[in-house]
């Protein structure tokens, strides 16, 4: 195959990294809803940690995105 084609295949494969981030984000938000349903008074305190966890998990998806862009423009 030509290099041009392989570049795009590589960029597509890099997007697989987002699967993990997707599972992680589902976990973060699912646990948050579970916790708030059990203890509604904790909602304010937990939401801070929700966004922090959200940002940390999303960092993985960002790395995958950047890798894809880098491969496409390599």
């Amino acid at each position, binding site marked *: 195959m030509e290099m041009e084609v392989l570049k795009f295949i590589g960029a597509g494969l890099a997007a697989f990294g987002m699967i993990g981030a997707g599972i992680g984000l589902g976990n973060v938000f699912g646990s948050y809803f579970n916790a708030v349903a059990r203890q509604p008074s904790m909602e304010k305190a937990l939401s*801070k940690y929700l*966004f*922090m966890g959200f*940002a940390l998990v999303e*960092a993985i998806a960002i790395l995958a995105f950047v890798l894809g862009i880098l491969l496409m423009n390599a």
Partner: protein
Amino acid sequence: MANPLEQFVVKPLSETPIIPGTEIMLTNQAVWMFGVTLFLGFFLAFGVRKKALVPGRLQAFIEMTYGLVETLSKDIIGPKGKKMIPTIFALYMFITTLNLAGMIPGSYTATSQIITTAIMALTVFFSVIIIGLLKHGLKFFGLFAPAGVPLPLLFILVPLEIVSFFIRPFTHAVRLAANMMAGHIALKVFASFVLGFMAMEGVASFGAVLPFAGLFGITVLEVVVALLQAYIFTLLTCVYLSDAVNLH
């Protein structure tokens, strides 16, 4: 069909450079950033001009926004972070306004450019290092070795902590830029679906209703994302500054 990436092109408004002999020109990105800064300055000054005890609508809005940032930094940094609230508030207002200005049809989203967000993230990164070194001296490097960890584990943990420390400004900047960029590309793609259906003949052109409904939904989602990403950028700024002020 127009290229969905065309909206992110930085183009100079005139060919004459600001400083003769260089290539520094006034671009559409710079104009939007200057405009938003001016707007924010006048808006905030106008909103709180009366300093009324019982605030009017505009003053209440600004006070609530300030309260949001204040509680955020108080919760995360603690009482030592009081000096940093103006910076954090300015950062939050600047990002929010730029994000929301990008939602105006035909406007330019300056936060979708990595250079805009990278400068802000690097400012935070270097502030953390400088404040940490000034406040704690060499003890600041204890940040990389959490207390109460057995010695053999430190050999693995310290390199990991160092890598995660230096990757921070990178993820901090790319998170905001990538989110704004992805949202605006999705908007453009759906808009091109609408135009594609409209170009068809006969009954098929009524299919344009479907992507238009999707476009409407994504627009609402984008406004939420614009506010949420500004909030997350501010929250992470607080978390990083808290590391510098309080160590672990």
